[in-house]
């Protein structure tokens, strides 16, 4: 087996530079690569473009990079929970491209699977379609959307092995599998890292070929954004 392990998050993020485009998994704060984000904050890389469904909250997730003005551009589908984000966007400090969630996922998948572009009905007739090539299929209009082009993907899985095979948990899966192999280098952080051979091959969600670097993350906070309970 090819060993994909790196000793720590510093090694995992080696090569990260100002001006790069990053993909970051997660939906809200669920399944975000907490360790990689902390390292990007520490490295203080600037003028980066982040492809991520959301932008975190003010003091966690990608909100940490926003606070330090490290992000030049965000490509997201929903950014509603972050006041600092809204302030930077409305003041023009931050460039924001809002795109439909399914289009975001499919643009990741396209990059992962070597499909340069695809047609989708989402956004036709709206601002999202402005300036884009459109075409009719089966009597319905569609927009041409392109695969993402990023230097690094940062994903978070529940379990992984030294060969880079990944298993996700619950709805923390979300965009993480779609971003694996969708950038030049995919960095996977996992809660549990086991030797190759310990995971059941039938249960693996993402084969190790899509992952270049894997490490066991530390001190996961796994914050809950909207703690909602029912009464007994």
């Amino acid at each position, binding site marked *: 087996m090819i060993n994909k392990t790196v000793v720590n998050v510093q090694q995992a993020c080696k090569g990260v530079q100002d001006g790069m485009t990053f993909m970051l998994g997660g939906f*809200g704060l669920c399944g975000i690569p907490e360790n990689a984000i902390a390292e990007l904050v520490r490295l203080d890389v600037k003028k980066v473009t982040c492809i991520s469904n959301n932008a975190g909250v003010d003091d966690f997730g990608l909100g940490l990079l926003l606070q330090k003005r490290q992000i030049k551009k965000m490509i997201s589908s929903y950014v509603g929970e972050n006041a600092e984000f809204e302030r930077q966007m409305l003041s023009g400090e931050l460039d924001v491209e809002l795109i439909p969630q399914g289009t975001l996922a*499919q643009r990741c998948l396209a990059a992962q699977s070597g499909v340069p572009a695809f047609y989708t009905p989402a956004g036709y007739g709206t601002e999202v379609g402005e300036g884009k090539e459109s075409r009719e299929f089966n009597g319905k209009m569609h927009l041409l959307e392109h695969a993402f082009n990023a230097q690094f993907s940062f994903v978070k899985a529940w379990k992984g092995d030294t060969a880079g095979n990944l298993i996700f948990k*619950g*709805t923390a899966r*979300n965009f993480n599998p779609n971003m694996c192999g969708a950038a030049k280098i995919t960095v996977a952080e996992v809660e549990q890292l086991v030797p190759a051979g310990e995971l059941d091959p039938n249960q693996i969600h993402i084969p190790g070929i899509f992952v270049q670097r894997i490490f066991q993350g530390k001190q996961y906070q796994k914050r*809950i954004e909207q703690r909602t*309970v*029912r009464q007994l």
Partner: protein
Amino acid sequence: MLDKNQIAQRIAQEVKEGYYVNLGIGIPTLVANFVRDDIQVEFQSENGILGMGPFPFEGEEDADLINAGKQTITALKGASYFDSATSFSMIRGQHVDLTILGAMEVSQNGDIANWKIPGKMVKGMGGAMDLVASAENIIVAMMHTNRAGQSKLLKQCSLPLTGVNCVKKIVSNLAVLEVVDGKFKLLERAPGVSVSQIQEATLGELIIEGEIPQMKF
């Protein structure tokens, strides 16, 4: 006039045996509380679960198990988890039978606006554009008028659109309406609400045919 729970309760009557249903944030989320328990229905949340259950009891919250509104949830027996691309394959591929979502404005030809108020509020469209572009069956849950008392059922939307010609049915605090031939057809009125009250609260063109029945609960 209906409150939010009653709107959800009325919409729940549209959920039929064997449906896979996607519920949006806000009033639509409440619909799950009112679906008859003698029919088989599965709720999809686009962040990656089919077979979504109720909110957890205190102490049983799981950070790895949330809905599209980022609320903690539970999974029912037989539920499944999947990635975002698979989730939107279910949606774009029209495997989801019914989509229920909120709106800031709806126009009489079925356009919907619910993601942006220029210069004021920009939260993003999330999955709404994919949902409305593909779903065959879309019900909008909304208040008939905004806080200033202005109609949200218009000839043309004034806000940036989420989708065009896609809304089929609207359940508001005042009425149930269907989009037919580029107009709002009034189907039912809320208990205690008169047809003229609905006319006053609707800027788009209304089709009113015969006696309009009161909603049944």
